Structure formats: C-alpha cells, structure tokens
C-alpha cells in the first residue's frame, strides 16, 4: 500500500489476469488499491496494460473480447468483476475512455445528458447537475448546442469528463486525458480533476503516459510494465526514485549518456520487469 495515513480502501484490484481473444495474456496478476478521496495514477509505457486494467474494472473488456480469468475486483466490499458495465456505473464507477469517445452527432449538452442515463428520469436533479458541470467547465456552456464532433480536442475531453460526472460517480477511471492535447489544456484539465476530487469527493484512478503531469497531480501511483505492477508509492517518492526519473521522466543525473550506458540501463531495467 501507499501512504501511511489510513484511508478507507474503496476499490481493490486483486491479482487479476486478463486474456484477450482466449490467447493473448495482457495482465499477469495486477493488484492495486484506491483509497476513498484519492487521485491514484497508473503509469507505464504503451502496451503496459493501463487501459486494460481500467477496462477490467469498468467491465468494458467484453466488448473487445477480453476476459478477466483470475483474481477479483472489489468495490465497496463487493465483487464487481461479473457485473455488466451498466451496473458498474450504477454502483458509482464511470470510465472516461482513452481518446474521449464523445458522441459526435450529439450536441455537447446531449452528450452530457446521456451520462445521466442510469439515473432515470429525475429531471430537476439532472438539470441541477448539468449546471454544476457547466460551472466546472464554463467553456462547455458556451458551446452547449454545437455537435461534439466539431469541437476541439480539449472541449471533447471536458465533455467526456463532464458526461461521466452526470452519472454522479464516486470514482472516475480516467484513461489518458492528456492524449493529443496542448500542455496548457492538459494543465487545465488536471486542475479541474483536482478540483473535482476536492469539492465533489470523487476519487480518480488515472492512467497516464505523461508521468510528469500525472505525478504532480496524483496522491500516489503504480507503475505497470508488461502487465505487472513493478513499483508503487506516494507520488513524491516515485518522482524521486532514480529509476522512475531515468525511465519515465527523462531526467538523468549524470548528464548525457553514451551508447554503452544506454545498454547498461536496459540491463538494469530488467529487474523491474
């Protein structure tokens, strides 16, 4: 586990193994915990298994012929690994998928409203929440009636997060929010995430390749490599770790390395994997 202070563990992934198409083993026993009210980062390179881990939790794997074959996923002391995605949302976990996935032919406002689907027809409450989402993302209010397909990447990312909020989640699984966005927009989105975490008490599990930004905003993190967790700890510790600095943050202590040194790192990196 991460930090020293005791928080209630909200989500606990226990030693899961995921196989795609009955043959491709992607996760080889991943375990992680998310405490209530935290922002937890899930870091790693392409293909490390970050998205797969999130999809295993939200159970969107079945749409990609993936299957959790071992281990369990526990949310609020109950197993959720056999629930269909709609029931997972009802329990309070919503995933914001990599690449935004807005409904291109729906307006921004309609996109947001689809997020409230599982909540049934309580109109007044939903209108209230819509205003709340607009207060976090004022830019969406200006563009409420444009088709989502014609908005910018940053606006789409905001729409995707806002849409997830409309389900009144207690935890959001946020997959690669920085993808393809300008650093300024990335910073804006991460600030909003932190804000939501504080004010709305939403916990976040955040998959990110941009290790730098993620560690700056998260409370703690896990590093995935090749379908396994190779390191975990509070963000500050991770950011200080020599290996993380070299492999993920691109900071090296000894200045520019020669080719021989690069080979040396490879050898050293192996103990991680």
């Amino acid at each position, binding site marked *: 586990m991460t930090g020293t202070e005791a928080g209630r563990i909200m989500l606990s992934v226990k030693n899961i193994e995921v196989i795609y198409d009955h043959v491709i083993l992607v996760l080889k026993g991943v375990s992680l915990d998310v405490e209530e009210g935290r922002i937890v980062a899930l870091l790693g390179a392409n293909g490390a298994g970050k998205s797969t881990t999130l999809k295993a939790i*939200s159970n*969107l794997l*079945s*749409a990609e*012929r993936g299957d959790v074959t071992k281990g369990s996923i526990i949310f609020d002391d109950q197993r959720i690994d056999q629930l*269909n*995605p*709609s029931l*997972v*949302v*009802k329990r309070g976990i*919503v*995933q*914001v*998928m990599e690449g935004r*996935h*807005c*409904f*291109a*032919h*729906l307006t921004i406002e*309609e*996109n947001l*409203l*689809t*997020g*409230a*689907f*599982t909540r049934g*027809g309580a109109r007044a409450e939903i209108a209230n929440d819509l205003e709340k989402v607009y207060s976090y993302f004022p830019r969406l209010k200006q563009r409420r009636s444009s*088709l989502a*397909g*014609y908005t910018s*990447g940053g606006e789409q990312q905001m729409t995707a997060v806002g*849409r*997830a909020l*409309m*389900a009144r989640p207690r935890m959001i699984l946020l997959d690669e929010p920085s993808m393809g966005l300008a650093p300024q927009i990335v910073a804006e989105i991460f600030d909003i995430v932190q804000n939501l975490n504080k004010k709305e008490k939403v916990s976040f599990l955040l998959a990110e390749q941009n290790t730098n930004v993620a560690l700056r905003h998260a409370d703690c993190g896990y590093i995935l490599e090749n379908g396994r967790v190779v390191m975990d700890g509070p963000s500050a510790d991770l950011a200080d770790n020599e290996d993380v600095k070299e492999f993920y943050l691109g900071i090296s202590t000894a200045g520019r390395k020669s080719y021989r040194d690069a080979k040396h790192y490879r050898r050293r990196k192996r103990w991680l994997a």
Partner: protein
Amino acid sequence: MAFFIEVLISGLMAGVLYSLVALGFVLIFKASGVFNFAQGAMVLFAALTFVRLIDILSETFAPILLSLAITIVVMIVLAIVIERLVLRPLVNQPGISLFMATLGIAYFLDGFGQSIWGSDVYALDIGIPKDSMFILESVFEGGILVSSEDLVATLIAGVLVATLAIFFQRTRVGRALRAVADDHQAAQSVGIPLNYIWVVVWSVAGLVALVAGAVWGSKLGVQFSLSLIALKALPVLILGGFESVVGAIVGGLIIGVGEKLSEIYLGPIIGGGIENWFAYVLALFFLLFRPQGLFGEKHIDRV
C-alpha cells in the same frame, strides 16, 4: 397540368409507404449496425397477426383496437426473443454473421406466421374510407382526383414519423439510442445497457412494421407478397443512405414519384412496366455515382 399533379400525388403516396418499410431498416441499422433482412417478414408477420386477431376478436366491443394492442405486445415480445436468442449470442461477431442471422429470422417469421395464421389473402378493413374525391377544383378545371385511402395512409405515416422524431430528439431513451448509434462502447461506458437498447430499437422497428403492414394490407389485402415489399425498400435505402431517417423518407418519396411519372410519361415511348424496375435502375445509378446515398451519414472527422 392537373393530370401531372394527380400522378405526382399518387406517386408521393406510394412513396410514403416505401418510406415506412425503409424506416424500419434504418432504425435497426443505425442502432446496431445490423442490416435487418427480416424487416419485410416482420411487416408480414405483424399484418397477419393483426388481421387474424381482428377476426378472432370480432365478437368483442372493439376488435380493431384490441387486436392492435395485442399485436403491439406481440411485436415487443418478438423483439425481446430476438435479442435473447439471436443478438446476444452473436455480440462482437462480424456484421455478416448478424446479417445471415436476420436471414434466418426472415425465413422463420415467414413460415411461423403463415403456419399459425394461415396463408390465404386476408382483407383488412380498419375503417379507412375507400372512396376517391376531387380537390382544388377552383384551381384546375375538373379538380384533382385523390384517393382518400392514400390520403389517410399518408397522414398515418406522417404522424408516425413525427412521433419517432420526437422520440429520438426529445426523450432520454431516444437520446441513448442515438448515442449507441454513434459509439456503442462509449455508450456502455456511461452505463447505457446495450441489450435494453436493442430490445427498444427492435420493438420500434416492429411497430413501424405493423403500421406499414396495416396500411399496405388494407390497400392490397394481407398476403405473403407483403414480405416482398422489403425488396422495394432496398433501393430506397441505397438512394437515401442506410443511416438516415430523413433519407429513408425522401428516398421513398423519390422512388414513389419516379415510378409513377416514368410509367405514365416514359411508358408510351419505351414500353410499359417501368414501375417494376425503375427503383432498381435508379439505385444502380446511385451505387455508381453516389454510393453513400443522398443523406448518407456525414462522417465527422477531426483533422
């Protein structure tokens, strides 16, 4: 001039009926990406159920309304059964497998419907007036002859389309349907259950089939050939675009009008029977020059 308008109107009205059948295809294609070959069979099955129930219930106080209600329930149950037995086991399979499955559904429904309800031609009388009338007598000498049966049919179709439009644009479930049509994985991620959406969309397609079957049936009698009007819907779809509700309507109207006008005005020159092949030749031209159809989905891509 008056004669031309008369032909035009009768073409438009025939077109409305093609649109109705095409609409059922479009709904299912949009929401689940399945080309539902069974739409024609559903038209026949719904119409057969409807007409035979009227017979059975003729002693009750309101046979037409009662059998309408029961037929609606039957179509909804059919949608549930199809979702359970066909769509659910085939989820994530390639489109062609689903298409083949709908072929199976088509044959099953044709056979099943006729074996429980019989395979004769049944006259369907739902109280649509059959007489014709003259309108616009002040503008044209002698007025324009319009069949009131066609007028009522058009009215029914119009109401149906308007209702569907409101359903899709204004309701929570309608919005969810459009969301699923756009991106089904994203729809799942916000908790929209796909199974439920499929049942809804097949039910709606069933209702559209019922309306189409009732209107066609009251015109021509309920018989096996009803399931073949699905073949007329195909060129309508090619013309209008498989993913567009507007396209289905406009495509239907163009084909209806085109058929009638060409029969009347080109028939004497190149020989009759144009009505039978006009739609297909037009569709062929569209496939050559505008394969996405008039209103084919505008794919929004960010560059």
